[in-house]
C-alpha cells in the first residue's frame, strides 16, 4: 500500500496536519516514536493561545499566530476540548518598561491583533487585585487550552477520519525510490511507502530532514522549567500575567498562567542545554522561578506546590553561521520534491497549529496535488466527560447509564472509574500511566497519584489482561513496577 501523505511526529503540528489532511481524499499515515501522541514539546508548555503581539511583523510566526488564534473557538468546540478565554496582562513595573509595552502594542496592531490596550495601575487592580505593576498591556483575546488534550483530540478525530496512526514507530531512514515514492524505514524493521512526507518531528525535525538530505538547520534545545501550584492559587489570579519580555532573552519571561484544570503555572525559564531529552528540573532555576513569580504576585508564597516539570523549545539555528532563524520553516524542500519540512516550530506554535495545517494542505500540497474534499468527513469528536466539572444531575444522568460514574478512583481530581476505563480504552490504544493522566487528569492532584496509582494499575492489568511489569509511566523503558526480571 502506498500512502499519499506520511506525517512524522504526532505533536500538535503533526496531528493538526493529519486532521486537516483527513478532510481530503488522501491516504494518510501518522508515525510517532513515543507510546502516545503529545509526548514532546506539545506535552510541556504553557498552553497559552497567544494574541500575536510578541512576534515580528511580517514573519510566518505573526501570520500563523493571528490566523491560528481565530480558529480555536470553533475547533475546540468541534473536538470537545476545553477552551478558556482567560485574557492576559503584560505588566510593566515602571515608566522605562512602559516603552516596551508600547512597542509590543504597536507590533500587535501591525500584526492584526484585536482587543489590545494599555492600562494603568488602577485598571490593573480592578482586573487582577493581587498583581503588582504600574502599567500593563491588556490582551482580551489571549486564551488557554490543555495542549496535550488538544493534540489527543486532533489525533482521535484524524483516526476517526481514516488516518492510520502508529505509535511506538520511530523513523530511522527515508529513501526516495525510483518511482519517486518515499520508503520510510522504522526501527522495528518494517517500512512504509508514501508519495509525500511531512516532517513534523519537533525537536528532532533537523535529524529527520538529515535522513533525506544535507542541510544547515540545527535545532538547539532550550529548556523551560515550570512549577505547578495548587488550585488554591486560582483565587489570586484569573488571567495569564507576564512581565515585559527580557531583552535578548530566549523566551517571554517567567510568567503566571492559569491552566484549564484550575492550577497556576510558574515559568518557563529559558536555558540552552545539550540534550534534547533532558527534562530535568534544576535547583538554581527553581529558586529563580519562585522569586520572579513572587515578585509578580506576592500572595503565591503561601500556596503549596503540586509539582515541577520541564519542556523544551526547538530553537532553530543555522548550523554554519550559528545565527538564529527567528522564524518557522514551513516549506517543501527545494532539493527533495514532496518532502515538506516544519522546522523550528516553537512558540507560538500551539496557537499557529491550525493555520499551519491549513497552509500545508492548501498552499503546499495543494500546489501540485488535487485537493478533493471528502463528503463523509466527521467534524466532531467527543472527549472523556469529566465528572468533576459536571453538576449533580449531569453525573446522575451518566451514572444511570454506567454505574462506574459513581466510583471515584482519583480522589484529588475527582476522576471516576468510568473516566479511567474510557482512557484505558482510548482509540489511539496508548497504554501508559501518562496516557491515562493526560486524558483524565487522574494522578495530577495533591497526592500525585499516591492513592490512585495502585488502583489505576489494577484497573489496567484487569482490563487489558497484562502483568504489572507491562505498566509504563511514559515510554518503553519507564517500567513502573520492577523486580519481575528474574
Amino acid at each position: 500500500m502506498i500512502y499519499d501523505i506520511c506525517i512524522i511526529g504526532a505533536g500538535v503540528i503533526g496531528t493538526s496536519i493529519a486532521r486537516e489532511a483527513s478532510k481530503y481524499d488522501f491516504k494518510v499515515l501518522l508515525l510517532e516514536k513515543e507510546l502516545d501522541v503529545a509526548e514532546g514539546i506539545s506535552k510541556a508548555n504553557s498552553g497559552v493561545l497567544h494574541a500575536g503581539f510578541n512576534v515580528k511583523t511580517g514573519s510566518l510566526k505573526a501570520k500563523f499566530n493571528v490566523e491560528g488564534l481565530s480558529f480555536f473557538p470553533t475547533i475546540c468546540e468541534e473536538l470537545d476540548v476545553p477552551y478558556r478565554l482567560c485574557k492576559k496582562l503584560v505588566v510593566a513595573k515602571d515608566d522605562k518598561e512602559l516603552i516596551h509595552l508600547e512597542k509590543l502594542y504597536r507590533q500587535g496592531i501591525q500584526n492584526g491583533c484585536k482587543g489590545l490596550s494599555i492600562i494603568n495601575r488602577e485598571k490593573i487592580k480592578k482586573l487582577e487585585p493581587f498583581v503588582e505593576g504600574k502599567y500593563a498591556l491588556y490582551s482580551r483575546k489571549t486564551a488557554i487550552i490543555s495542549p496535550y488534550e488538544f493534540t489527543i483530540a486532533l489525533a482521535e478525530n484524524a483516526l476517526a477520519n481514516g488516518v492510520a496512526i502508529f505509535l511506538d514507530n520511530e523513523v530511522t531512514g527515508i529513501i526516495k525510490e525510483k518511482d519517486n515514492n518515499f520508503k520510510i524505514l522504522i526501527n522495528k524493521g518494517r517500512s512504509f511507502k508514501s508519495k509525500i512526507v511531512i516532517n513534523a518531528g519537533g525537536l528532532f525535525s533537523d535529524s529527520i530532514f538529515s535522513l533525506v538530505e544535507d542541510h544547515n538547520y540545527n535545532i538547539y534545545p532550550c529548556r523551560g522549567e515550570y512549577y505547578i501550584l495548587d488550585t488554591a492559587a486560582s483565587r489570586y489570579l484569573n488571567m495569564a500575567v507576564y512581565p515585559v519580555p527580557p531583552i535578548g532573552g530566549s523566551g517571554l519571561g517567567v510568567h503566571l498562567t492559569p491552566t484549564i484544570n484550575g492550577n497556576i503555572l510558574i515559568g518557563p525559564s529559558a536555558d540552552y542545554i545539550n540534550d534534547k531529552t533532558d527534562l530535568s528540573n534544576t535547583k538554581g532555576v527553581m529558586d529563580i522561578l519562585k522569586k520572579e513569580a513572587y515578585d509578580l504576585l506576592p500572595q503565591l508564597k503561601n500556596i503549596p506546590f503540586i509539582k515541577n516539570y520541564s519542556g523544551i523549545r526547538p530553537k532553530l539555528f543555522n548550523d554554519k553561521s550559528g545565527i538564529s532563524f527567528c522564524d518557522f520553516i514551513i516549506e517543501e524542500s527545494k532539493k527533495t520534491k514532496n518532502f515538506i519540512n516544519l522546522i523550528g516550530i516553537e512558540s507560538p506554535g500551539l496557537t499557529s497549529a491550525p493555520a499551519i495545517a491549513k497552509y500545508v494542505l492548501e498552499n503546499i500540497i495543494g500546489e501540485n496535488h488535487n485537493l478533493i474534499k471528502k463528503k463523509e468527513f466527521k467534524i466532531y469528536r467527543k472527549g472523556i466527560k469529566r465528572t468533576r466539572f459536571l453538576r449533580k444531575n449531569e453525573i446522575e444522568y451518566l451514572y444511570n447509564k454506567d454505574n462506574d460514574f459513581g466510583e471515584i478512583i482519583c480522589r484529588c481530581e475527582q476522576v471516576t472509574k468510568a473516566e479511567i476505563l474510557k482512557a484505558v480504552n482510548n482509540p489511539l490504544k496508548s497504554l501508559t500511566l501518562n496516557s491515562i493522566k493526560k486524558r483524565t487528569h487522574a494522578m495530577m492532584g495533591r497526592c500525585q497519584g499516591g492513592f490512585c496509582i495502585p488502583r489505576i494499575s489494577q484497573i489496567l492489568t484487569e482490563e487489558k489482561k497484562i502483568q504489572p511489569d507491562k505498566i509504563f509511566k511514559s515510554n518503553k523503558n519507564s517500567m513502573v513496577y520492577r523486580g519481575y526480571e528474574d
Partner: protein
Amino acid sequence: MKKIDAAIIGAGPAGMAAAVWLKEKGIDNFILFERNNRLGGILNQCIHSGFGIDYYNEELTGPQYAVRMQQRLLDLNINYMLGANVIDLNRNKELTVSSSKNGIEVYKAGSVIITTGCRERTRENLEIPGTRPAGVFTAGSAQELINILNYKIGNKVIIQGSGDIGLIMARRLSIEGYEVVKLFERLPYLSGLIRNKVQCLDDFNIPIQFNTQISGISGKDRVEGVYTKESGKDKFYKCDTVLFSVGLIPEVEIGKKAGIILSNNFNPDVNSKFETNIKGIFIAGNSLHIHDLADNASIEGEKVADYVFDYLDNEKKFRKNIENIAPYNSHEIDEKYNDDFFKNLKDGMVCIVCPKGCIINKNNFGCKRGEVFFKKEKMHKLRRLTTTVFCEYNGVIKRIPVISGEEINIKEISKIKEKLKNIKKIDSKSFSINHNKKEIVFYTV
C-alpha cells in the same frame, strides 16, 4: 434528601471508633461513609504489629485491629456505606455522596465528623530537582502495592525519611527480598519511634544516615540513582527505586469545600471540643493532626463522638465551656536519637517491647517485660514475623497478612519466607509450617 443525625466521613481508626461510641451513647440515625471497598482505611495495608497496645491492651497487626473494630461495628448494627465518596459538603451540612452502588445521593446531617485521615508528602512537595522517572514512590503507596496488590516495585531501594512508615517499609522490603541500600534522614535525629529503628533497620543491617536529603533524582525513564549533598559535595547512590517517607498532611479537602479554616495551610482550626469554625462540623484523627499511633486516633475519635452527642443532645449546653484552643498536643519528635546517642549505646540496648523505647542494660531493665527481653536479646534476636502470603483465602486468591504465633530468630526469616511461598490455600484463621522439625503457627486476622 435523606436526613441523618450524624455523618462520619472515613472508616479508619478514628472514624470507626467515633461510630462505635456514638452508637453506644444512643445515637442511631447516622452513617459511616467509607470511600474504599472495605472498612479500616490504611490499617489494612499496615500488616506489621504495634497496634492496639493502648486501645485494646494487646499488640495487634493493622488488619487485626481493623477487623476487631469492624466486628464491634457489626455487633452494634452500625450503618455504614462502602465505596462511598463524599464529593461535596456545604455549610448546611449537606453531603453529596457518590458511589457505584447508589450513584449520587444527598444527605442532610445534623452533625458531621470528618475522619478522612491524611496523605503523604510527595517528592514534589519537597521540590527535589532532577528528572521524573518511574520508580519514585511514597512509602505508603509502596506499602499498598506490595502488601495488598502483590506487586513488585523494584530491586534496589533508597528511602528518604526516618518516619515510622519509612522504617516499617525498610523492613518490609528486606523481608520481601529487596536490597535496601540506605535510609536518609534530613534531620540530625530519628523522626520515627526508636523501637522501629531497632526492629526495622538494625535487624536487617540497613544503614541510616542523618543530615542528608536527596538533592537530585537521576534516570530519564526509570530511576538510576539519587544525588545527595555531603560536606558540600555531590554524592551519587545507585538504585532503581526511591521511597519517600517525609511526613503526612491532614487531608481535609472535603472540609475545605464547606469552608472550614486551616491554619498554616494544613491543620484545621478547631475549638476545645474539636468543632471547626462551622457549627456542627467536627474533625478527629489524622485529618486533624498527625498521630504517632493509630490507637490515639481511635481515642480521639471517641472523644469527638462524646462532643457530637452533647451537640446533638443540647446545643446550648454544648456551647458552654468552649475554649478557642486546640484540644490536642501535636506530636513532638524526641530530638535525642541522633548519631551520638546510637554511638553511646554500647552496653545498653533499646527495649522494643512497647512503643516507649526504654534504654535498658544489665543494671536497669526498665520493667519486668524489659528484663525478659534483655536476656533473650543477648542470645538471639527473636521477633514475631509479620508478612503476607499470596494464596487462596475464602475462595479468593490474594495477599493475606499473617503474623507468626511465636517469635522467630531473624536469621531464619528468609528460609521461612521461602516456605510460606509454598502455601496454596488458607482456610482458617491459622495455619502452620514445618521449620527445623518444629511447627510454626501463623495467624491471619
